């Protein structure tokens, strides 16, 4: 049984207050996507080499690698997860979490700006531009200090692709929905966590366990402020490694049978 090493990845939950209450941005993956086809997901993906670069770190606002690595409890390169979260937010969801030189969040409400950043985004997704270089050229800093780290999921052993994913939450800057256009290949929607959970319960909204558990956590809060405050207050963020049982059930730590399921020992691989 091969045991793939999980790739570092970042997920970003973008939240906002609406008349209906707290909402979170979700995407629906292509049915052609190799990873979780047709699933409703949060923006995110594997870290790029450029996310760890010195140039990327230099653009991060209010956070350095030592602090970031301390928060994630990794030896180094922790800031790369924040950079990836900001980059994926822009590439996948069209939401730019960046500050101008005065430290104000970039709003993007001028028609000329909107067109320019739309073009940037298409160029990024086409692989013609590089995110960090683009931010530097636009004289922007990454709003890393606005992202709150709140959970850590590792894809179970035995899955065809495995990720070691750090989850971040951030309030979406207002007015940036304008960046979406009809070239999108991924469906976007702002949803109330409770509504997404209800649709999931009816079998209409396919989600994986980490997404579901995140929404359950979010659904306990009325506003973006209340949610962010609660997430900031989390002292410990334990890594959650779901396990797949022999009969295909997915168990979380604490579920009955978790300890035995899918461990090397459980599969009879041990020396004593």
């Amino acid at each position, binding site marked *: 049984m091969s045991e793939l090493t999980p790739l570092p990845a970042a997920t970003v939950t973008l939240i906002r207050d609406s008349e209906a209450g707290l909402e979170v941005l979700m995407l629906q993956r292509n049915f052609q996507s190799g990873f979780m086809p047709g699933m409703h997901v949060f923006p995110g993906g594997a870290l790029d080499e450029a996310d760890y670069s010195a140039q990327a770190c230099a653009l991060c606002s209010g956070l350095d690698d030592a602090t970031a690595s301390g928060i994630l409890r990794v030896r180094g390169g922790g800031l790369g997860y924040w950079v990836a979260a900001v980059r994926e937010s822009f590439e996948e969801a069209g939401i730019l979490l960046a500050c101008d030189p005065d430290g104000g969040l970039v709003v993007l409400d001028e028609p000329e700006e909107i067109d320019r950043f739309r073009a940037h985004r298409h160029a990024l997704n086409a692989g013609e531009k590089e995110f960090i270089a683009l931010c530097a050229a636009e004289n922007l800093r990454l709003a890393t200090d606005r992202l709150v780290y709140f959970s850590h999921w590792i894809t179970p052993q035995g899955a065809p692709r495995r990720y070691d994913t750090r989850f971040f939450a951030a309030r979406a800057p207002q007015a940036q929905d304008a960046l979406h256009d009809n070239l999108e290949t991924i469906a976007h929607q702002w949803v109330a966590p409770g509504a997404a959970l209800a649709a999931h319960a009816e079998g209409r909204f396919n989600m994986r366990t980490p997404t579901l558990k995140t929404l359950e956590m979010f659904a306990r809060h009325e506003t973006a402020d209340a949610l962010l405050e609660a997430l900031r207050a989390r002292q410990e963020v334990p890594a959650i490694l779901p396990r797949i049982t022999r009969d295909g059930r997915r168990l979380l730590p604490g579920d009955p049978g978790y300890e035995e399921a899918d461990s090397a020992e459980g*599969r009879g691989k041990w020396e004593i």
Partner: protein
Amino acid sequence: MGDIVPGVIARINDLVIRITAPNPGMMTGPGTNSYVVGKEELALIDPGPESETHLSALLGAVGKRLRWIFCTHTHLDHSPGARALKAATGAQLLGFARTPADGRQDPDFVPDQALRDGDIVDCGGFRLRAVHTPGHASNHLCYLLEGQALLFTGDHVMQGSTVVISPPDGDMAAYLHSLERLLSFELAALAPGHGLVIETPHEEARRLIAHRLKRERKVLDAFDRRNPAHLDELLPIVYNDAHPRLHPVARRSLHAHLIKLQREGRVVETEGAWMRDAGGC
């Protein structure tokens, strides 16, 4: 060679195939391996647990040509499948004469032909030689496929995990002696009762001996921390490298180590308290 999939025929060489029973688990790894040997008249080594699924997989592979059913030992994951297989094929059952009575054995096992160390069974196209290898079980036999130098090791050597030595029938000193004995045979490969074929037989035997002696050293050293000590006090010290979920299993092998040391006069036991001999070790 890839993963083991229960019920799927895996060819080992021109004479031998492997069919693994659907009983994977902590103690059985990917499941119990049954091996079928021969081209016309066939022999089967270890029919595995009582299982309808496995029985039909085996019958599918051997048809009406099965003549001999060899068992390496009578633990419940190795021999109970023999009864239905014998009934279906009329094959003869072979194994060690005496089945130990420790509550972990297949009580129905009665061989048609009892084998002793060195017995050779002529199966027409090939010959199998019984090698008595007590340790994991007192009635354990390995079978040497002569001419191919392939040894069917049952639970004497497993691939992927170490075997458990469970007193009173399990005996650590006998086990080490039986591992050493493998070095006296010319061997090309080991076909274990659990896991994949091992292509470095002597290296593996030496590695296992060294592994057990290292553990024995750790048992003796544990008395530096606590002397005398109860089995359950020694357990977390001696097996601090093993996941706690393995400790109940490790406890049995620890007991076997202590009994070996006791017989050698290096530790003594009084009412459950084990003590390293004051003379040192």
